């Protein structure tokens, strides 16, 4: 493998790779559930607004930092706003590593169900609860699929930026769209599906007065667009100097939300058309991400016309969405190791091994998985805030002018206000709200460190990040832009 890194072969290559990263399981299994639980069209209003107030400004900040420093997350903040703020790099990176550990397990689950769909498992009437519980309660199988998921991502990353990541995205993203368009059309043409369609888009005005509708809409945008996680910044390392930041960000953001709408049009009308009762619909939409996807959707598949084709399309879309997101995470960790001077062909297997070992507890135990999902979900909000903070320290107006120099869409004051005021304020409100929720879930033990979803476990694991940060900072002098050293090439030899 040539050590030289390359730039994306085209703008659309970068956009597809960025969308592949952004579109994940959250788009397919969380969005429809949130729409159903929080007032249909009312939820959509908040969700649409927060794309422009939270996610898009953060995507632009990330791309700006990644391209300017040409460094992984660990060292980019030091180069961007100075030694004093070098600590942000380890914090952002450790949060992302925490997510990657359990997200690889999710990708493994989607592989398992995609393979089950291909082999026709869902064409027969099966006990979907038993199938799911048997699968997750026997650690060997989830661990094996977790290994398969991270191993395959390692292979793609090893193949390189253009020949691996870009080419994979160019195949999987259009395929994902086609599969979801197929499943959405199939769902909305089922007898009785119009009720679901109407439910999805009808604003239930009373929900607009509830804080939870707005906070869940903001959380959905923060968790599904992937802004502020460091992943856009990593992919931006390989963009050209004059790539249009605003256009690329807007395309990726709109594309991400388009996929969410397709997922909503797949799941909500199907549930309304096929569910035996209103009570069943409520149970399905309040059964959590995995409950809705792996139990209720599987159950409904067995009574759907063309079960075989629909199940392949649905679980195929889910698996492709999850897989392309994990690729970006593997690339982020690999790039950071390369910045420490480790050769890429060594950094990749080290990354794969690290993720595999780190993900085993989540693969083996659902309580650990749930805990990690909760803790790092909060961690992501911190990471988003830190990106906004870095932009504020650098100078938001200066950054806006830099983006405007190369963009056909000119950013104005809304962007500046978003970074300076909205994002910090929304971060405080959203984090406080989630932690308050956690106190209400465990009123008597919210401070204990080993509960699944409480405040104590967040504090404990953030304390571990705080302890690891100074240790990693000791190595900061080894960090340099491996991409700048190796040189940016238009072509790549593997």
């Amino acid at each position: 493998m040539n050590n030289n890194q390359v730039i994306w072969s085209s703008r659309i290559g970068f956009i597809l790779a960025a969308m592949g990263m952004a579109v994940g399981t959250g788009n397919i299994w969380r969005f429809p559930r949130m729409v159903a639980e929080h007032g249909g069209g009312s939820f959509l209003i908040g969700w649409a607004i927060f794309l422009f107030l939270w996610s898009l400004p953060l995507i632009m900040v990330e791309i700006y930092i990644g391209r300017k420093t040409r460094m992984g997350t660990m060292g980019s903040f030091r180069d961007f706003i100075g030694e004093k703020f070098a600590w942000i790099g380890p914090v952002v990176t450790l949060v992302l590593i925490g997510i990657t550990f359990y997200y690889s397990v999710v990708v493994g689950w989607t592989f398992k169900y995609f393979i089950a769909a291909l082999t026709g498992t869902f064409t027969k009437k099966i006990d979907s609860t038993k199938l799911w519980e048997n699968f997750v309660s026997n650690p060997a199988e989830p661990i094996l699929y977790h290994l398969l998921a991270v191993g395959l991502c390692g292979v793609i990353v090893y193949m390189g930026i253009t020949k691996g990541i870009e080419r994979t995205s160019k195949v999987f993203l259009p395929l994902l769209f086609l599969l979801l368009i197929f499943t959405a059309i199939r769902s909305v043409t089922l007898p009785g599906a119009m009720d679901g369609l109407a439910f999805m888009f009808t604003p239930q005005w009373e929900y607009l007065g509830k804080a939870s509708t707005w906070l869940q809409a903001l959380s959905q945008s923060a968790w599904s667009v992937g802004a502020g996680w460091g992943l856009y910044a990593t992919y931006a390392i390989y963009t050209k100097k004059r790539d249009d930041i605003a256009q690329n960000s807007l395309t990726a953001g709109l594309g991400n939300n388009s996929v969410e709408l397709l997922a909503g049009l797949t799941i909500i009308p199907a549930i309304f058309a096929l569910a035996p009762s209103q009570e069943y619909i409520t149970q399905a939409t309040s059964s959590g991400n995995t409950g809705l996807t792996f139990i209720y959707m599987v159950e409904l598949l067995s009574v759907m016309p063309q079960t075989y084709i629909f199940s392949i399309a649905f679980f195929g879309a889910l698996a492709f969405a999850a897989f392309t997101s994990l690729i970006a995470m593997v690339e982020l960790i690999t790039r950071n190791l390369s910045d420490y001077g480790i050769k890429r062909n060594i950094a990749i297997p080290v990354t794969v091994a690290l993720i595999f070992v780190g993900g085993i507890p989540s693969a083996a135990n659902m309580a650990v998985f749930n805990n990690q999902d909760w803790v790092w979900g909060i961690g992501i909000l911190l990471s988003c805030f830190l990106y906004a903070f870095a932009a504020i320290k650098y100078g938001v107006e200066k950054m806006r002018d830099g983006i405007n120099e190369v963009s056909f869409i000119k950013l104005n004051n809304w962007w500046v206000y978003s970074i300076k005021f909205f994002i910090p304020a929304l971060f405080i409100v959203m984090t406080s709200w989630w932690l308050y929720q956690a106190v209400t879930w465990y009123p008597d033990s919210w401070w204990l460190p080993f509960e699944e979803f409480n405040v104590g476990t967040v504090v404990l694991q953030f304390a571990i990040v705080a302890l690891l940060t100074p240790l990693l900072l000791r190595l900061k002098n080894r960090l340099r832009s491996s991409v700048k050293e190796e040189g940016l090439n238009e072509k790549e030899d593997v």
Partner: protein
Amino acid sequence: MGASTIIMMVLMLGIFWGGFSYMVYRTLTTEYED
């Protein structure tokens, strides 16, 4: 399906599907100098 439902559907699909399609079209058809 009431008027508010149809307005919301047109708005959401217009902004996201329409906007995304236009941005992809623009990206693919613009000749960049760099």
